[in-house]
């Protein structure tokens, strides 16, 4: 075997375990879902194989699904904006702090050591009827009766921000770290105030990180179903909850498949748009 042909084959040999795993665990099941989405669930409860467009017609025309999809995108959007507003200053602080960066980054990662579900449920202890906040307000005499603060859209967004903030901070941090510290000094020396040099230099150069963090927060936020279950009310269902309902409760796999593919298509389109303008490399940087 020549060196050249070996060099050409080597990447594929190294990639093969990962490719096998991705194929077996992601692509094949996804194809099953695609096939399933064209089946029909008969009244008797058995699935009828075939090529039926009924599920798709249902998903694409039913206003109920459309409204929940729009609501899901709205919640994900608001969450992303809050993550950006809260995460950017935090990332900037970490990137510009001297010496203790590692500690700050470890603190940032610390929540990941606790299950996401536990973290989400902890809000019940804080905001619930007999939670910490109500107890404190009662003790201070600000309120006379416990207030129900949980189970609405705001608490869903709160839970999502809590969950997703580290992703935003990490992405923005990575892009800020990549900016030459001398650039701000250079801008200052040329007459720009610190705020002006931030707006003119640092912010534009960190936009790729902000966009990558935003995409992650949005996609993860739009795909969540645990947070609305734990922190939302009956009307705060998000799109993933519909999939859960269809598949687990109604055992209607064909409909659930069509619903999940619809969500995948919407979020996939967003990723494609992002990739078109900013490239996936930035996202990989933020995750690494």
């Amino acid at each position, binding site marked *: 075997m020549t060196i050249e042909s070996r060099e050409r084959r080597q990447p594929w040999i190294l990639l093969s375990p990962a490719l096998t795993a991705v194929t077996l665990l992601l692509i094949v099941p996804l194809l099953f879902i695609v096939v399933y989405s064209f089946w029909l669930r008969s009244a008797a409860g058995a699935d009828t194989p075939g090529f039926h467009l009924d599920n798709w017609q249902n998903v694409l025309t039913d206003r109920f699904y459309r409204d929940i999809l729009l609501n899901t995108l709205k919640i994900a959007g608001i969450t992303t904006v809050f993550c950006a507003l809260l995460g950017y200053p935090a990332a900037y602080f970490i990137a510009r702090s001297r010496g203790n960066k590692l500690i700050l980054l470890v603190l940032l990662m610390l929540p990941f050591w606790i299950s996401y579900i536990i973290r989400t449920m902890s809000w019940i202890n804080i905001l619930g009827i007999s939670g910490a906040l109500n107890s404190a307000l009662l003790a201070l005499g600000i309120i006379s009766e416990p207030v129900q603060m949980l189970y609405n859209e705001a608490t869903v967004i709160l839970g999502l921000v809590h969950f997703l903030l580290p992703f935003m901070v990490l992405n923005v941090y990575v892009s800020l770290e990549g900016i030459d510290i001398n650039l701000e*000094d250079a801008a200052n020396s040329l007459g720009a105030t610190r705020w002006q040099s931030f707006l003119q230099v640092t912010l534009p150069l960190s936009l790729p990180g902000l966009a990558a963090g935003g995409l992650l927060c949005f996609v993860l936020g739009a795909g969540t179903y645990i947070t609305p279950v734990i922190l939302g009310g009956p009307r705060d269902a998000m799109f993933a909850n519909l999939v859960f309902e269809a598949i687990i409760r109604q055992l209607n796999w064909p409909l659930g498949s069509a619903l999940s593919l619809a969500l995948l298509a919407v979020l996939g389109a967003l990723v494609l748009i992002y990739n078109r303008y900013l490239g996936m490399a930035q996202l990989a940087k933020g995750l690494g």
Partner: protein
Amino acid sequence: MSAVTLTDIVKRFGTFTAVHRMSLEIPQGSFVTLLGPSGCGKTTTLRMIAGLLDPTEGDISIGGRRVNDLPIHRRNLGLVFQNYALFPHKTVADNVAFGLRYRDVPKSEIEGRVAKALELVQLPNLGARYPKELSGGQQQRVALARAIVIEPDVLLLDEPLSALDANLREDMRVELKNIQQRIGVTTVFVTHDQTEALAMSDRIIVMSEGRVEQMGAPEEVYNTPASEFVANFLGASNVLAAESTGVNGDEVGLTLPDFPTLAIPRDRAPRIAGAGPAKLVIRAEKLQVRPPGPVSNGAYSIDAKVEAVDYQGQSARYFLRAGQHQLQAINMIDERPLPAGADVSVSFRAKDCAALPPETRE
């Protein structure tokens, strides 16, 4: 009037003192170099003049005005960084125009001034490019154009040439000095490269461990080093322990083993007051290495043996042993150098020697 004045500047970082009580006057229009190894405080000093660092003690004046409390963006300085620090998301023209936009320069005028600055650094017609599309040397020129287009009171250069490769560095050295002279801007240049310092400066300030070792014209610093550190830092020098026999008229007497008794000019030993321990300093290129034989009149001569030769084409560096001393000599050569193991005669003139008192440091 001096353009920049430092008065008793001290800079401490925690318990570490980066700059010890430094005073300095930089004349209007001059090119002054802060020279020293890394960690000597030269960049710290520059950053204090720039306003990027606050001095712990002392005053900084620019153009006769105390600027300690003046933030960097109001100091009107041109700053050039080692890594250029060009704004990667802005075109070359926008980079150069950046400072003008904060200076109430009318929009109509900006374009013309940017074009003029780019012409001065020999980069006309590149305004629409982005920095990453330029070579290192071109980026450095853009950084220079960006710094001088605002007509700064002082131009501050922080190792601006050290990221360039050797040939380009020499070209840029000449060009930088040329541009500086043409626009007549007071310039403070920081470098660890003695060749750059000697070639470009009106005055060199040699620093070591936060202290000024010597200030003076390049020839003065080179020929009459004020300390062993300066002697070793600027080129290769032989520094040998000796004994002063005291001042005798215009001369200072020096004795050391294996050497004839030396009488060196008084002005080459300004800090020797009387008899006592001293140091003899002779630059490596002032030692003439020849096959044994008679030497020219008035020169001292000692016998030595070549231990090793470092051939450098037009010159050779000899490592010599003369009695108990190890010496270095750098000589221009014709054809081939003297071989290792050869017995040689090493000669030097009295005026090529300098004498220093033994090191005293508080």
